[in-house]
C-alpha cells in the first residue's frame, strides 16, 4: 500500500483567508485570553508590516494599525479538515485525519483510475489550490513515514521500503515527530540523524526512553502497523461562513456564496451524489434567519450551475436586515446519474443542455413557469389539457381549435356566420363540473374562425371558447 500525506501548514490562516475576497490584505489571527491577546499566525501582507507570531496584540498595534484580525478558531479549523476529508474521499476510500492539520490517503488502489502518480499529484495540487489551501504532499509505503517525510520534503514519492529506509536515515532527529524532550536528549547525546539512532542498541534505547519511542521508530520503518480510524462522510452538508462585517447588498453575498456552492460541489463529488434541494440561511442580528430554498428538478452537482441558480433565487429576496453569516444546508443528497450524451451530437455547438436551461428559467420565473403540455381523455375543453405530457390513447373527437381561451368571451357580432355545428358536449355530471353545451364553428366578418358555444336551453349571445388559428 502507498500512503499520501497532504500536510496543510497554514490551515487556520487559509481557512480564514478563503472566506475573504482580498487574500493579500494584512491579516493576523489572535488567540489567548482577552487581557493578553497574542498573534497566533500572520499572512505575508502582515509579515511585511513587521508582525510576527507570538507578539502581543498591543505590541503589534504599536507597529501598525493597518491590519485586520480574526479569531484563531479551533472549531473552524475542524470544519476545514472535515471539508478537506470529504474532498479527499473522492480520490480514495481510505482517508484519515489521524494527525492534526494533515490528510492521509491510501493512493495505490486509486492509481488505476487517477494515475500515474505525477498526474494524480498534479490534480490534487490543482484542486487544493482552487479550494484555497497551501499544502505539501509526500508519498511513502506507510502512513507514519509519509507524515514524517512531509516535515522535511514536498513532492517526494517513495514507493519501496528499501528507499524509504535510506531517505529516513538522512532525516535530522528533531524532524522525526518524537516527543520534544526525547529529541532534545538525543541531540545532547550527539545523535543528529536517524541513522545514528538506529545504530544504537535496542535494549539500551528501551531502558533509557519511554516505550513509545521504539514503537514510533518501528512504525516509521513499517515494522509495526499503525491503526488508523478512517473518515466516513456525513449524510448532511452543512457549511457556514461568518461575514466579518454586516452585509446589506446581494452583491457582497456573492463571494461567500460562490465558496459555499464550490464546497458543496466538492463534497458531492466525493460522495458521488447530487443535490436536489438545499436551503441558504442568511443570519441576522436579533431576528430569525431568512431562508432561500433552492429546488431542482434533477440531481445536480456542477459548481458553476449551483452558484448561478442560488444567485438567481437570492436576487429575488428582499434583505430584511443586514446579514451576519451565510449557511448552506443540504439534507437530501440523491445519487447522481450523469446525463446520457450522444457521441455525434446533431448540434455540436450546443452550449447549454435543456435541463440546465430549464433550471435557469425556473430560477428566475418561478417553479411553475416552465411546464409541458398533455392531452386528457375528457370532452370538456377546460379539462382536456394538463401541464404534464401524457401518452394516452385519446377518443376521437371533432375539429378542435388550436387556441383555447381561459374564460369564454361573449360574441356580440351581428354578422356572425355559422360554418358547422352544433356539436353537443355533455359531460362531467359525476364530478360536479356538469357541462351541457352546443359548440359551433363560427366565422367573423374579418375572417377569424372561432369555436363558440351556447349552453343547452340557455339564451343570449354565443360564448367564444377558442380560435381556429
Amino acid at each position, binding site marked *: 500500500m502507498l500512503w499520501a500525506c497532504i500536510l496543510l501548514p497554514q490551515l487556520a490562516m487559509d481557512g480564514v483567508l478563503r472566506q475573504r475576497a482580498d487574500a493579500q490584505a494584512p491579516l493576523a489571527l489572535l488567540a489567548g485570553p482577552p487581557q493578553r491577546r497574542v498573534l497566533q499566525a500572520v499572512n505575508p501582507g502582515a509579515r511585511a508590516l513587521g508582525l510576527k507570531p507570538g507578539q502581543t496584540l498591543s505590541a503589534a498595534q504599536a507597529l501598525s494599525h493597518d491590519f485586520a484580525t480574526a479569531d484563531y478558531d479551533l472549531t473552524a479549523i475542524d470544519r476545514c479538515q472535515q471539508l478537506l476529508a470529504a474532498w479527499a474521499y473522492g480520490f480514495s476510500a481510505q482517508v484519515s485525519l489521524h494527525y492534526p492539520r494533515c490528510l492521509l490517503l491510501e493512493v495505490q488502489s486509486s492509481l488505476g483510475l487517477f494515475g500515474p502518480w505525477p498526474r494524480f499529484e498534479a490534480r490534487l495540487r490543482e484542486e487544493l489550490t482552487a479550494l484555497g489551501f497551501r499544502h505539501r504532499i509526500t508519498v511513502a509505503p506507510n502512513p507514519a513515514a509519509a507524515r514524517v517525510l512531509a516535515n522535511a520534503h514536498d513532492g517526494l514519492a517513495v514507493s519501496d521500503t528499501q528507499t524509504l529506509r535510506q531517505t529516513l536515515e538522512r532525516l535530522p532527529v528533531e524532524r522525526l515527530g518524537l516527543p520534544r524532550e526525547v529529541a532534545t536528549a538525543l541531540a545532547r547525546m550527539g545523535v543528529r540523524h536517524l541513522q545514528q539512532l538506529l545504530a544504537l542498541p535496542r535494549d539500551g534505547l528501551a531502558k533509557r526512553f519511554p516505550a513509545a519511542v521504539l514503537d514510533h521508530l518501528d512504525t516509521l520503518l513499517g515494522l509495526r502497523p499503525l491503526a488508523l480510524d478512517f473518515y466516513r462522510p456525513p449524510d448532511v452538508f452543512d457549511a457556514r461562513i461568518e461575514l466579518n462585517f454586516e452585509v446589506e447588498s446581494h452583491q457582497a453575498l456573492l463571494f461567500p456564496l460562490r465558496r459555499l456552492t464550490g464546497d458543496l460541489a466538492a463534497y458531492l463529488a466525493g460522495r458521488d451524489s447530487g443535490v436536489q434541494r438545499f436551503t441558504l440561511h442568511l443570519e441576522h442580528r436579533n431576528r430569525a434567519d431568512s431562508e432561500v430554498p433552492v429546488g431542482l428538478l434533477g440531481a445536480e452537482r456542477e459548481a458553476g450551475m449551483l452558484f448561478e441558480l442560488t444567485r438567481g433565487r437570492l436576487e429575488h429576496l428582499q434583505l430584511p436586515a443586514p446579514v451576519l453569516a451565510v449557511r448552506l444546508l443540504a439534507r437530501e443528497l440523491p445519487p447522481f446519474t450523469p446525463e446520457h450524451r450522444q457521441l455525434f451530437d446533431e*448540434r455540436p455547438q*450546443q452550449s447549454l443542455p435543456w435541463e440546465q436551461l*430549464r433550471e435557469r428559467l425556473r430560477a428566475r420565473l418561478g417553479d*411553475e413557469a416552465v411546464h409541458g403540455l398533455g392531452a386528457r381523455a375528457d370532452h370538456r375543453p377546460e379539462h382536456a*389539457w394538463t401541464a404534464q*405530457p401524457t401518452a394516452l390513447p385519446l377518443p376521437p373527437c371533432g375539429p378542435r381549435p388550436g387556441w383555447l381561451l381561459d374564460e369564454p368571451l361573449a360574441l356580440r357580432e351581428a354578422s356572425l356566420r355559422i360554418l358547422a355545428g352544433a356539436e353537443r358536449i355533455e359531460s362531467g355530471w359525476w364530478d360536479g363540473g356538469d357541462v351541457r353545451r352546443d359548440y359551433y364553428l363560427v366565422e367573423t366578418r374579418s375572417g377569424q374562425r372561432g369555436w363558440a358555444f351556447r349552453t343547452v336551453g340557455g339564451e343570449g349571445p354565443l360564448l367564444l371558447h*377558442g380560435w381556429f388559428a
Partner: protein
Amino acid sequence: MTSVVTLERLLDARSVWRGQAVVAASAAQPTGHAELDASLPAGGWPDSALSEILVAAPGIGELRLLWPTLARLTAAGERVVLVGPPHVPYPQAWLAAGVDLRHLAIVQATGRDALWATEQCLRSGSCGAVLCWPNQADDRALRRLQVAAETGRTLAFAYRPLAEAANPSPAALRLVLDGRPAQLRVLKCRGGLAPARPLQTAAWS
C-alpha cells in the same frame, strides 16, 4: 480620357459583382407549404434567424402556418418552446396537426421576462424552434433575439400585431397574415426580393 474596357475583362478580374449569381440555398427548414417554400429565397424559413409573423387578428391561420414545421421538428426529437403564449394550446388540435407534445415546452412569462426567456432559449442551442409573442418589443429587443438565434442556430418566430408592420425590424423574414381576404404577404425576406403577389392562405387551411 476614357478607355474602353470590355465586359469580359471586368468580370474576369472579379471587380464586378453579379447579382444573379446567387444560387438558391437548399431548403434546410421547409415551411411545409409548397407554394410558400417556392416564393421564399431560402426555399423555406431562414435558418438560424428570426422570422416575424404579423397577424391582423387571432384565428386566421397563424398556427396552421407553423404547425407543419413544428410537427417536423418534434418528430425529429427537437424541442419546441412557446414563450408566453396568449392562450392555452388545445392539445387535441396540436396532436391532430402532428406535433409531438412530448417535445413541447411552455414558458409562462410576460413583458421583459418573456424577452429574456426567449433569448435564453435561443442562445442555449438546445431548442429546435422558439415561438414568442412579444407585446412591446422595440428594434433593439428584436435585434437581440436575432443575434441569439444566430448564436444558438435556432429557428425563432415572433408573433406581433399587424400595426408593427410600419416599423422597421431586424428580422430576416417578415410575413403578414390577413384575415379578409385570407392571404399571406411577404414584407421582407433576406437574400432576395419579396414576391409581389400575395399567397392565398385558403390553399392550406
